[in-house]
C-alpha cells in the first residue's frame, strides 16, 4: 500500500481545523461590508478585505511551494468542477460519497517500453510522494491554494519508458455510469466521455507536473479526483484530469475534452494567461476563494520561472 503522507509533515501542522474558521471570518467580513454598503458607502476598489486568515503553522516550504495561505479543506472539497458527478460545484461532494477509488487499475498504452495494466500500487511503487503547495487557477476566474501530496509526473513517466517517438501523453478519466450520474444521461449530455486531457512531453516531465494522490495529508477525496489526478499549476484547472485510468504515449497532439467541446474557447495548452481573455470573460483577474475582491492573475499562474522557457517563441494568443 502506498503511503500517502510525506514523512516530514505531522498531521497537526496541516490540520484544517483553524482554517475552517476562516469561513466564519468571511461571513463576519461580508456582514460588515454589506452593512457599510447599506449605509451608502462605496468600498474603494481593489482593497483586500478578508485578511484575517489564521496563520498556518510554520513549515519549511519546498522549492515549488507557495507561501500563500492554503485554502481551507472544507472549501477545496465542496467547491469544484467534476462534471461526471454533476454540473454544480457542490455536486462532486454530494454525489461522490459511494465512489470506489480502490481497487484501481491504470492502463498504460502507446509508445513506451512498459505498457500494460498496472494496479494503483504497482504504478507508483518505488516512487516518492512529495508535498506541493500550489496555486490552482480555474478557467472560470476563481482560484485556490492547495496543499497536494503526489508523485512528480516525470518520475512516473520515466518508469514507463516512453520511446523517442512519443511526443505527447494522454490521460483519460474513468467511464462508469454506475458511479457517475452525468454519464447516465442521454439528453443534454454535458461532455463526451471519457474526459480526456493531454500534455506535451516536456510539459509532462516538467518538475511542477504532479500526479496527486492526496490533499492536506489525507488520501485524495473522491470529489477531488481520487485516487489519482493530474495537477499542472501553470495551466487552468480543467487540465487536471481526475480519476485517471488510462495513460497513452503518442506522437500526435491530442484533442482534449474542452477543446473538442468549444475549440474557440479552450485550447490544448490552456496556460494561465491574464493577457488572453476567454472569449466570454476576462482572464485578467481572479477571485481567490475566501477573499472579497478580485486580484490580478499572474502569467503562467506565477510559475513562469519554471515553465516559460517551454513556450519561448510561441504565439500564446494562437496557442491558448
Amino acid at each position, binding site marked *: 500500500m502506498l503511503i500517502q503522507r510525506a514523512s516530514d509533515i505531522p498531521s497537526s501542522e496541516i490540520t484544517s481545523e483553524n482554517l475552517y474558521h476562516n469561513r466564519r471570518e468571511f461571513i463576519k467580513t461580508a456582514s460588515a461590508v*454589506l452593512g457599510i454598503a447599506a449605509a451608502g458607502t462605496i468600498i474603494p*476598489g481593489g482593497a483586500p478585505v478578508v485578511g484575517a486568515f489564521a496563520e498556518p503553522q510554520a513549515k519549511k516550504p519546498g522549492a515549488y511551494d507557495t507561501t500563500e495561505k492554503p485554502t481551507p479543506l472544507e472549501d477545496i472539497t465542496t*467547491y469544484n468542477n467534476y462534471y461526471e458527478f454533476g*454540473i454544480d*460545484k457542490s455536486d462532486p461532494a454530494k454525489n461522490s460519497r459511494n465512489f470506489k477509488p480502490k481497487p484501481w487499475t491504470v492502463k498504460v498504452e502507446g509508445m513506451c517500453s512498459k505498457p500494460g495494466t498496472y494496479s494503483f500500487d504497482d504504478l507508483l511503487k518505488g516512487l516518492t510522494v512529495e508535498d506541493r503547495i500550489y496555486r490552482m487557477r480555474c478557467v472560470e476566474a476563481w482560484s485556490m491554494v492547495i496543499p497536494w501530496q503526489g508523485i512528480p509526473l516525470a518520475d512516473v513517466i520515466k518508469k514507463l519508458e516512453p520511446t523517442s517517438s512519443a511526443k505527447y501523453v494522454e490521460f483519460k478519466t474513468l467511464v462508469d455510469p454506475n458511479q457517475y450520474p452525468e454519464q447516465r444521461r442521454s439528453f*443534454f449530455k454535458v461532455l463526451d466521455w471519457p474526459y480526456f486531457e493531454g500534455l506535451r512531453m516536456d510539459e509532462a516531465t516538467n518538475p511542477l507536473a504532479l500526479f496527486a494522490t492526496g490533499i492536506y495529508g489525507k488520501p485524495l477525496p473522491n470529489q477531488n479526483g481520487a485516487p489519482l489526478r493530474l495537477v499542472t499549476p501553470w495551466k487552468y484547472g480543467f487540465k487536471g484530469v481526475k480519476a485517471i485510468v488510462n495513460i497513452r504515449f503518442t506522437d500526435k497532439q491530442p484533442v482534449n475534452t474542452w477543446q473538442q467541446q468549444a475549440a474557440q474557447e479552450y485550447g490544448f495548452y490552456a496556460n494561465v494567461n491574464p493577457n488572453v*481573455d476567454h472569449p466570454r*470573460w476576462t482572464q485578467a483577474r481572479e477571485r481567490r476563494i475566501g477573499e472579497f475582491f478580485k486580484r490580478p492573475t499572474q502569467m503562467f499562474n506565477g510559475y513562469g520561472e519554471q515553465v516559460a522557457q517551454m513556450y519561448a517563441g510561441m504565439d500564446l494568443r494562437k496557442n491558448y
Partner: protein
Amino acid sequence: MPKFNRWWILKPVVFFACLVPTAWLLFDTFTGGLSANPLEDIRDRTGIWTLRFLMITLAVTPFRRITGWSSLIRFRRMLGLFGFFYAFVHLATYVWLDQYFDFAEILKDMFLKRPFIITGFISFLLLVPLAITSTRKWIARLGGSRWQMLHRLIYLGAAAGVLHYYLRVKADIERPVAYAAVLTILLLFRGWHTLQRRRSQSAAEMKAV
C-alpha cells in the same frame, strides 16, 4: 358597513412570499450556507430569481385566461416589480462585487466582446421603463393601450435575459434551454390567444353584416 376585502390579506402575503428568496439568500450568507465562492452564489441566485419572476409575471395572463381567475391581475405589477428588484440586485453584484465600480472596465466588458454581459444589460434596460411606468398615474398618463404597448417590452426583456443565461454557461445548457422553453410556451399562448380573438371578432363582424 364596509365589505371585508380579502385583498388586504392576500397582497401582503404575496409580497412577503416574493421576499422569501431574499431572506433565504441572506440567511445562507450569514450562516455559512453558501459555497466557498459566496459572492458568485449571490450573483447567480439573484440572476436566476430575476428570470423566475419574469416567467411568473408572464404566466399571470395565460393562467387567468385558462382558469378564469381574473382577479390574479391584481398581483401582476407586484410580481413584475420583484423581477425588476432581483434584476437590480443582480446587476449591482456585477457592478460592485465583480468590477468594483470600474466603469471603464464595465464598458470594455460590454462592448468589446462579451455578448453575455451586453444581453444582460439590455434585458435590464428594457425593464427600467416598465418599472417606472408601473404606477396608476403613469397608466392614466399614457392611456391604457399605449401603456399596454410599452409593457410588451417585457417579452424582449425576458428573451434577452434568457439569452444572457444561455451565453454564460459553459456546456451545461439544459437549464437555460428550459427557461427558453417556458418563455416560448408563454409567448406562444399569447400569439394563439390573439389569433383566436381576431377570428372570433371577424366572425362577429361577418354576422353583423
